[in-house]
C-alpha cells in the first residue's frame, strides 16, 4: 500500500496542475497515471488558452462570451471563476517557462478565436497543448513530486453510506501495468480525478486511444452524478482513418466540401445557403452526415474537402501543416487530390459534477479537467476554453484538497432538495446493472464503518479478484468486439444527429454490450504489460459512460448547443434551462435535473439568441 496526502489520478494538464498546486499548499502529493505524463492527450491541443490579459479586455467580457457560447447552460459562478482566474494562471505558465508566441515588444501573443469578442486566445505556435503539458511536467520534476506512471487506476475506495453526499473517498486501487500487481493508494486528504475525456465511446474521435472515461465511470459508480453528458462537441473535418483534425482554417481560406457526386452540397442541398462551408461546426457536421446517410458520401463514409483551387503557392504559404497532416496520417497529397473528411467526436462538455473548488458530492473526491463538469462549457465549448479550465480548476482542486480555504462554493452538488426528478421518459431497456457485479462501486460492507485502511484493503481485494477472474477465464468474448459494437452504436445513433428512435436503438445496443461483457475474457495470459487486460477494463468504463451519454440525449428533447434532437429543433428554455444529472444507484442510473445558475457576482446572464 502506498500512502500520500493527495492522490491525483491522471497526469494531463488538469492532473499536473492539481499536483503542483497541492504540493505548493504543502501536501505530500502523488500522481498516478496510466500513461507517462507527457503522453497525455492535453499535448494534442493546438489553438490556445483564453485569458483576458490585455487592455480593452476584461474577465467580464470573457464571461459573457462563454455564457453565450454555452447556450446558457453554464453556471455563472463557474464561468466567472474561470474567467477571473485564467489571466493570472496563464501568466504563471509563462513564469514557468512556457514558450508562448511573442509580440514585437516581447509580450505573449493573443489571437482571435470563434465566439470571442476580443482576441484573447494566448497561444504557443500551433502546439499550445504540447507546451502546456510539458511545462507543467517540468514543474512536477522540479518539485520532485512522486509520479507513478503506467499505473492504471481501477477503482475508488469509497465508503458506502446510502446517501452519496455522506460518502467519503479514502484512496484508489491501481495496478502496475508493467508488473501486473494490484495495489492500494491511500489518500489522507483527497483524491483528484483528472482522467480526461471519454472520446473512445465513439467510433470516430479526435481523442486519444487512452481517452476512455475511466474517471467518469469510477466516480459514477461511487455515487457522484455525471452532468450534461449528452453534450458532445463534434468537429466537421477530421481525417476518416485516424480522426486527426484538419483545421477549420482550410475552410476559412476557401476550401470547399464536395460529396461523391461532385456537388458542393452546403449550397446545392441547401444546408447553409449563405455561409456554405463556413457555417458553424454543428451545421456542417450534420450536413456531411446527411450526405453520407443519403448515399452521396465517398465510399459511403466521408466527403471531400478540396483546397486544390487555392493554388500551390497559397496552400504552401498558409496551410502547409495541413498538407503534412493529410500526408502523414491519411496518405493523401492535398495538392493533387481532395482530402477525405468526416465529423469526429471532439470534446465532452459534460462530466463528473463538481463545484468551483473541484469537489464532488463525495467527501474527499475531486475532479478537474475534461472529466469534470463545473459547468463552464454548458451546451457548447468555445475553442480555447478547455485549457484554461485545466489550469484554473486543476489548481483549485489541488489547493482545496490540500486544505487551503477557498471559501464556500455557490454550486451545489449531489442529489438534494434543489433538484427535480425525471418523470416521464420511457426507456427502451433497463439500463445499468448487468455485467457489473464484480468489483466497482462502493466498498460494500453493510454500512459498517470500517477505517480508511480497511476500506481500501477491501477494495484492493475485490480488484485483485476481478483481475484474477478476467485472467483465468479462458473462453468468451474479447473486449475489442464489444468495444467496436459500442462505438458503432454511439456513432450511428448518438452522433450529431439524434432522434428518439435512434437513441433508443443505441440504448438497446449498449444493453447488449453489457450482456456480452459478462462473458468477457482476457486472452493474453501474461501479467507483464497486459494491455489486453487494461483495455478490457476500460471497455467496461466506456459502456457506463456511453450509457449516460445516450440517456442524457434521450431525455433532453430540445436543441441546445451541440445537442440536436429531431423531435424538437429549438432551444426550449422554458423546459430545459437545467442540467441533466445521472447518478448510479444500486446498479441503476438515476436521472434528475438541477437548474442552471445564471446569476453571476453582480449581474444575471439573460438567455439570448446564440447568434454571432
Amino acid at each position, binding site marked *: 500500500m502506498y500512502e500520500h496526502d493527495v492522490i491525483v489520478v491522471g497526469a494531463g494538464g488538469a492532473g499536473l496542475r492539481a499536483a503542483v498546486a497541492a504540493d505548493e499548499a504543502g501536501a505530500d502529493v502523488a500522481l498516478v497515471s496510466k500513461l507517462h505524463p507527457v503522453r497525455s492527450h492535453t499535448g494534442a491541443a493546438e489553438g490556445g488558452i483564453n485569458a483576458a490579459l490585455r487592455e480593452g479586455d476584461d474577465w467580464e467580457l470573457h464571461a459573457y462570451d462563454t455564457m453565450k457560447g454555452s447556450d446558457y447552460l453554464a453556471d455563472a459562478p463557474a464561468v466567472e471563476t474561470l474567467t477571473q482566474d485564467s489571466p493570472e494562471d496563464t501568466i504563471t505558465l509563462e513564469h514557468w517557462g512556457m514558450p508562448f508566441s511573442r509580440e514585437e515588444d*516581447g509580450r505573449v501573443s493573443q489571437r482571435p478565436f470563434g465566439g470571442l469578442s476580443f482576441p484573447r486566445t494566448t497561444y504557443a505556435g500551433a502546439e499550445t497543448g504540447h507546451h502546456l503539458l510539458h*511545462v507543467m511536467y517540468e514543474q512536477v520534476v522540479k518539485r520532485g513530486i512522486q509520479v507513478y506512471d503506467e499505473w492504471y487506476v481501477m477503482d475508488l475506495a469509497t465508503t458506502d453510506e446510502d446517501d452519496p453526499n455522506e460518502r467519503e473517498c479514502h484512496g484508489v486501487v491501481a495496478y502496475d501495468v508493467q508488473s501486473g500487481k494490484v495495489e492500494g493508494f491511500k489518500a489522507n486528504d483527497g483524491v483528484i480525478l483528472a482522467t480526461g475525456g471519454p472520446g473512445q465511446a465513439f467510433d470516430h474521435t479526435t481523442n486519444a486511444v487512452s481517452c476512455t472515461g475511466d474517471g467518469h465511470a469510477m466516480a459514477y459508480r461511487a455515487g457522484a452524478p455525471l452532468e450534461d453528458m449528452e453534450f458532445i462537441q463534434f468537429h466537421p473535418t477530421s481525417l476518416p482513418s485516424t480522426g486527426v483534425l484538419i483545421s477549420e482554417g482550410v475552410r476559412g481560406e476557401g476550401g470547399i466540401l464536395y460529396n461523391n457526386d461532385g456537388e458542393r452540397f452546403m449550397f446545392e442541398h441547401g444546408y447553409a445557403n449563405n455561409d456554405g462551408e463556413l457555417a458553424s461546426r454543428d451545421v456542417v457536421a450534420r450536413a456531411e452526415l446527411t450526405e453520407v446517410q443519403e448515399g452521396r458520401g465517398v465510399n459511403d463514409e466521408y466527403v471531400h474537402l478540396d483546397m486544390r483551387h487555392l493554388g500551390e503557392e497559397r496552400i504552401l504559404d498558409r496551410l*502547409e501543416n495541413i498538407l503534412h497532416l493529410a500526408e502523414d496520417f*491519411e496518405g493523401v497529397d492535398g495538392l493533387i487530390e481532395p482530402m477525405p473528411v468526416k465529423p469526429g467526436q471532439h470534446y465532452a462538455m459534460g462530466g463528473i459534477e463538481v463545484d468551483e473548488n473541484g469537489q464532488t458530492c463525495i467527501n474527499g473526491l475531486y475532479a478537474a479537467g475534461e472529466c469534470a463538469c463545473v459547468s463552464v462549457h454548458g451546451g457548447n465549448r468555445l475553442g480555447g476554453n478547455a485549457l484554461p479550465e485545466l489550469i484554473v480548476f486543476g489548481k483549485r482542486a489541488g489547493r482545496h484538497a490540500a486544505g487551503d480555504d477557498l471559501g464556500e462554493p455557490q454550486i451545489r452538488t449531489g442529489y438534494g432538495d434543489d433538484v427535480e426528478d425525471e418523470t416521464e421518459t420511457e426507456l427502451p431497456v433497463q439500463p445499468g446493472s448487468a455485467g457489473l457485479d464484480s468489483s466497482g462501486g462502493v466498498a460494500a460492507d453493510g454500512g459498517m464503518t470500517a477505517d480508511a485502511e480497511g476500506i481500501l484493503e477491501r477494495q484492493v481485494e475485490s480488484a485483485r479478484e476481478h483481475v484474477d477472474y478476467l485472467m483465468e477465464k479462458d473462453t468468451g468474448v474479447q473486449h475489442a468486439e464489444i468495444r467496436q459494437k459500442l462505438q458503432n452504436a454511439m456513432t450511428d445513433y448518438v452522433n450529431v444527429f439524434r432522434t428518439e428512435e435512434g437513441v433508443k436503438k443505441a440504448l438497446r445496443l449498449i444493453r447488449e454490450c453489457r450482456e456480452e461483457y459478462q462473458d468477457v475474457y482476457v486472452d493474453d495470459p*501474461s501479467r507483464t*504489460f497486459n494491455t489486453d487486460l487494461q483495455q478490457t477494463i476500460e471497455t467496461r468504463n466506456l459502456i457506463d459512460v456511453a450509457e449516460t451519454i445516450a440517456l442524457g440525449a434521450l431525455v433532453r428533447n430540445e436543441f441546445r448547443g451541440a445537442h440536436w434532437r429531431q423531435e424538437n429543433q429549438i432551444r426550449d428554455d422554458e423546459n430545459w434551462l437545467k442540467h441533466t444529472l445521472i447518478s448510479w444507484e444500486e446498479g441503476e442510473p438515476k436521472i434528475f435535473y438541477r437548474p442552471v445558475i445564471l446569476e453571476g457576482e453582480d449581474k444575471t446572464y439573460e438567455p439570448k439568441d446564440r447568434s454571432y
Partner: protein
Amino acid sequence: MSTQQQKPEQPESQEAPQDPEMKGAESPVDEKEKETGEIDQRTADDGELDGETVLIKVFRYDPEVADKQEPRFDEFHVPFEKGMTVLDAVMYARDHYDSSLTFRHSCRQAVCGSDAFFVNGKQRLGCKTQMADLEHPVRIEPLPHQEVVKDLVVDMDHFYDQMHTVEPYLQQDDLPTGDLEEQRQSRENREKIKMSTRCIWCGACMSSCNIAAGDNEYLGPAAINKAYRFAMDDREDEEVKEHRLRIIEQEHGVWRCQTQFSCTEVCPKDIPLTEHIQELKREAVKKNLKFW
C-alpha cells in the same frame, strides 16, 4: 432553420490557421528520403496495394509466457487501406488476430511520443509512418538499445532519467512582480528555441545513437536538446546558463557525441539535434576559454 442557426463564425481557430508557425517547415527528413530513393514512390505503390493484404512481421517477446521467452517474429496479414499507418496495422493485428500483441500508443497523431518502433531498420513513429511508404514485408521491432519489456514495449526509465538529469525546468526566481506581468522574450529568441521545444520524448533519437548504445551514461541527444532549450532561452540568467553548460560538458555529455547524425535523421519532429549539440559544444568551449 431554428433560432439556433448561427452566423458564420470566424474560422474557429481552435486548431487554427493564421499563425505562421502552423506551417511547419518542410520536413528535411522527408526530403532526404525522397532523394535517396529509400522510399518507393507512393503513387505507384498505392495502386498495387489497394484492396490487398500487407504482411507485417512483428517482434514478440514475453518473459512470462513459455513460447515467447525466446524472441520470435510473428507474421500477420493485414488488409490494406489507403492511408494505413504502421500503427493502424499493428492495431488491426491486435484487435483481429492476437490480443496479446503489446505496444504503447495513444494519440495517433504524433504528439504523445508513445509509439516509436524500429520499422524496417529505422526508428519511426508508428502513427506517422504510412504503410504505403515502406518496403514489404514490413518488419516491426521494439526500439533497439533499450531493454524489451514485452513485444514492442521497451523500458523507457533510462531515457526519462537522462531527461531529468539536465534539470529540465526554467530557473528564474527573479520574476516580474507587476500585476499580470510576463517575462519579456524577443521573437528571435523564441524562434531560436522553437524547434528544440517540440520534442515529444519518443526516444527514437536515443535509440538510433551508437554512442548512447555503448555508453549508458551518455546524456543522449534528447536530453542535450532539452538542455539546449533552456540554455538558449534568454529568460534565464547568465549564471544559470553557465550552470547548464557545466551539466552538459561533463564527460558523458556533449563530448561523447560523434556527430553521427542518426538522431537528427530519425527525429519525427525534425529537430536539428546534431546542430544543437554542436552549438552547445562550441558554447562550452567558449565558456572554458574565458577562464584560460
